[in-house]
């Protein structure tokens, strides 16, 4: 791959400006939140995050916000990913490797179908609240 400079990057963005201009941040209705604590990183959360970026980019989906957070309390099931989408329950997915991330994009986000075999509940209040 030829080395990209910041000027090249600016040109690359400008070449896609029409597409970008169609995006309205307020229309971003879906949130994908990847747990990136020590436990998540150790279990491969960076590859998970990267797979979401790749799959959403390839799908041309512009209504999804990708965010990161620290440990969400499910260290035994890392990498964990929370998906918040309208008209669907907020879901915590566990053991989300790159393949599962692509399934979440294809099934949960594009087809509005839950990826049943990776759903985990949120941790009990005594863990989250420290009681």
């Amino acid at each position: 791959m030829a080395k990209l400079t910041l000027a090249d990057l600016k040109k690359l963005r400008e070449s896609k400006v029409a597409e970008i201009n169609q995006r309205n941040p307020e229309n971003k209705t879906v949130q994908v939140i990847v747990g990136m604590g020590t436990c998540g990183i150790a279990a491969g959360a960076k590859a998970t995050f990267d797979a979401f970026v790749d799959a959403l980019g390839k799908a041309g989906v512009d209504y999804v916000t990708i965010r990161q957070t620290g440990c969400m309390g499910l260290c035994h099931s890392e990498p964990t990913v929370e998906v918040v989408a309208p008209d669907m329950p907020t879901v915590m997915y566990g053991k989300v490797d790159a393949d599962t991330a692509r399934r979440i994009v294809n099934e949960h986000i594009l087809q509005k179908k839950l990826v049943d075999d990776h759903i985990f509940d949120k941790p009990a209040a005594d863990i989250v609240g420290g009681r």
Partner: protein
Amino acid sequence: MHPTVCDTLADIAQNSIEAGAAEIEIRLARNARETIVSVKDNGCGMTAEQKRKAEDPFYTAPGKHPGRKVGLGLPFARMTAEQCGGRWTLESEPGKGTFVEFSMAADNVDAPPLGDVPATLVGLMAWDGDREIRVVREDVGGSYEVARSELSEALGGDWSDAGTLAMAKEFFSSNEDEITTTR
């Protein structure tokens, strides 16, 4: 220890983000003798007592993981340095910031691989919030430096957008190809 150098870097740099740093400088350098990683921030910093505890794996900063009794980021980095013939430095001052540096000897059989540098750096740039992150990257074939603000200016600044992140990754990948190849 974490499986790759980049995993440890991501973990340490996340501490800086959580410490409220407005400026973070990340250096990842590799030469024939060693790999060196450093993260310097102007976050909340630590007292001498907090600094001592931060190296204890059975301690975590209050509020970071309520109800938990482990904090493994800094201990993993220290373990990596100590097990791989490297050096370990942790300096911090309350209100001024923290400097973490660890290295690994290139010929140490336990030294972890570098890992996915572009994905790691894009992930760090993409954390919510407004802060400057300067990356200094040196390897066998050359070096490059870039700041988050420069990338934001080129890319429009929406770090939660998949298209923006993909373009940033393309930038880092092309620069990594350049410096990790001996021409």
